[in-house]
């Protein structure tokens, strides 16, 4: 599609998601106050509770 071509999306990207499945997350979790730690905490929470349904909230209103 012309519009998509305009976005330059024919770029080939080699890597996919970062594989954290085998990483010792606890070590990173000690990085105090970091954005990465916060994300890893949320990731750990999602792993602990597989029934947790994360929904996307309204983009123009903070819940």
């Amino acid at each position: 599609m012309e519009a998509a071509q305009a976005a330059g999306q024919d770029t080939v990207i080699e890597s996919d998601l970062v594989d954290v499945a085998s990483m010792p997350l606890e070590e990173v979790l000690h990085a105090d106050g970091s954005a990465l730690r916060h994300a890893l905490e949320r990731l750990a929470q999602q792993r602990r509770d597989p029934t947790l349904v994360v929904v996307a909230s309204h983009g123009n209103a903070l819940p």
Partner: protein
Amino acid sequence: MSEFRWPYVGLNRDRLEADGWRATPFSQFVLKVAQRCNLACQYCFVYTKADQSWRTRPPHMPEPVLRTALDRIAEHVETHALEHVTVILHGGEPMLLGAHRLRDIARAVRAALPASCTSTVSVQTNGVLLDEAALDVLSTAGVRIGVSVDGDEQTHNGRRPFHHGGGSHAATTRALRLLAEPKYRAMFAGVLCTVDPKSDPLSCYDALRATGATTIDLLLPHATWDDPPAGRAGAAFGQWLARIFDAWYEQPGDVRVRLLDDIILQILGGAGSSEQVGVSPVAVVVVESDGAIEQVDSLKAAYSGAADTGLHVDHDPFDAALRHPGVLARQIGLRALSRQCRSCAVVDACGGGHYVHRYSADAGFANPSVYCEDLLHLITHIKARVTADLDAATAP
């Protein structure tokens, strides 16, 4: 015309259900309690884009419409045994109703819900009418406040003027100072900033940090392939956001920048909670001031009637909206994305971007985002930094 494009054709609900897919109940209800606004923001998707339906709707949501909408929310809660819902009082500018009316609505929300369901009631405001007296009133109903502010004074005033042309920064800042005070801090949900790539990102970020908000949302201005954003050449939006990412990421603290935080989480394989990126199901439904049940209001930027469902709180339960193709399309994850997106390496973190940004008249919503280049730049930038830090932290 767009009713003949995806998702209005080509989406097979029966097949999805046969594959095990199930609808996600709505848990966030946006009530358009006010249809007008006291500001004239340059980029507003309600007033400056394709859909002008605000002109024909009641300026304020009438009491009978409100009562019926709340009954419908309670019905949805009971049908799906929901334990928590969020109700957002939105506009236009909701503070045009006055704090007492908003307090009464918040109380009515809680009174309508069954005891088994807790609720968060929030107001999304430009802050102009938010003074101490208003906050005192709203605090009695436990209302949370999100404030829209576009960073530093010069940028904000240029983009968020009053109708007479004067800037609104001083009035908004006054409200933000109040919300940062200990007395009101618990009410402060955070700030929203619409990205202006012509502005200095670090000046913007510093101004947002200075508000004392613990949650910052950065929004790409709503645009489509047919109405593309000005100044996006060279991934200008992505580069602007990447500079804020670096500043935020390197600065220890507890401020959450939702868009960036969600991208990190999704790069790591988690599920995000932002409508702008990722493939988490969108569980938001809108009730307009006339009682119409609509899809997310940002769709108004696509074409006239784009948010319509044809449903109304007088006649229809919210479950009927769960069967609407436009709602369905936002709950099926990767299956909703264009072939180009599905073959992209960053698709899990990007999710095709915001739904409305994918729109073109020729292909409906089955496109990559009009911000594709920007999202690719931002996500690959974030991924490189996160990967390096993870490698360093986990090295033997």
